[in-house]
């Protein structure tokens, strides 16, 4: 059960795991020792409670990170700190993307009005659309992960740890 518990802890964000895993394992070990003398029902109840508690806890911790309530965000070891600010060019690029989306919606609306009479049902093309969306999402995720991996390889994330201070005189 302890090895299963350790394995489940890997579902937690790495930052959280580094912070609490040792304590959690220690508390779990004590609780497991207490309950091991109990009835079968108590032992099963303990295992179910611990497993569900860990699963819910992992989801909650990931949600906290996505929601931005945590002190720092960790993507596979690449920490984005709260003082991190996107460059100004990001606003410009996001504006272009937003304008592109609006334009595409406008075009789609025009096409729909123009060819509505001749077009059939959209359902036959739905699997293709879903497949394309899935592929696009996977590609975007891979590109994002690649960028983060490349940044980590260059050591950019260590810049956040550099402290500004007086020059050393020795």
């Amino acid at each position: 059960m302890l090895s299963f518990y350790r394995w489940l802890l890997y579902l937690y964000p790495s930052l959280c795991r580094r912070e609490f895993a040792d304590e959690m394992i220690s508390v779990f070990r004590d609780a497991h020792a207490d309950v091991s003398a109990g009835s079968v029902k108590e032992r099963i109840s303990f295992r179910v409670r611990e497993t569900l508690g860990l699963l819910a806890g992992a989801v909650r911790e990931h949600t906290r990170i996505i929601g931005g309530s945590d002190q720092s965000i960790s993507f596979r070891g690449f920490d984005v700190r709260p003082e991190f600010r996107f460059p100004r060019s990001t606003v410009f690029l996001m504006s272009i993307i937003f304008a592109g989306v609006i334009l595409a919606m406008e075009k789609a609306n025009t096409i729909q009005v123009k060819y509505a009479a001749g077009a059939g049902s959209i359902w036959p093309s739905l699997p293709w659309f879903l497949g394309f969306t899935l592929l696009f999402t996977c590609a975007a995720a891979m590109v994002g992960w690649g960028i983060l991996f490349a940044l980590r390889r260059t050591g950019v994330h260590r810049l956040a740890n550099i402290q500004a201070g007086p020059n050393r005189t020795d």
Partner: protein
Amino acid sequence: MSGGRVKLSTGTLYGALHRLLDDAWIERVEEDESPRDRRPYRLTSRGRRNLQLEVERMRHLTKLAALRIARKEA
């Protein structure tokens, strides 16, 4: 504390501890001799103030409930 009525899983317990640490309601007690898997925590002044407010709120609730029950029985 609850006489076995409330059983917390370690996932729930440490989720709550993490939240309390983030909100600065509790803090870790740094002791040289404490092992890494046994680190004590204590209430901060902010946490103590919030605990007092919560106790007050619960006291008010129980008082209201007692009044309601007394009124029904009268």
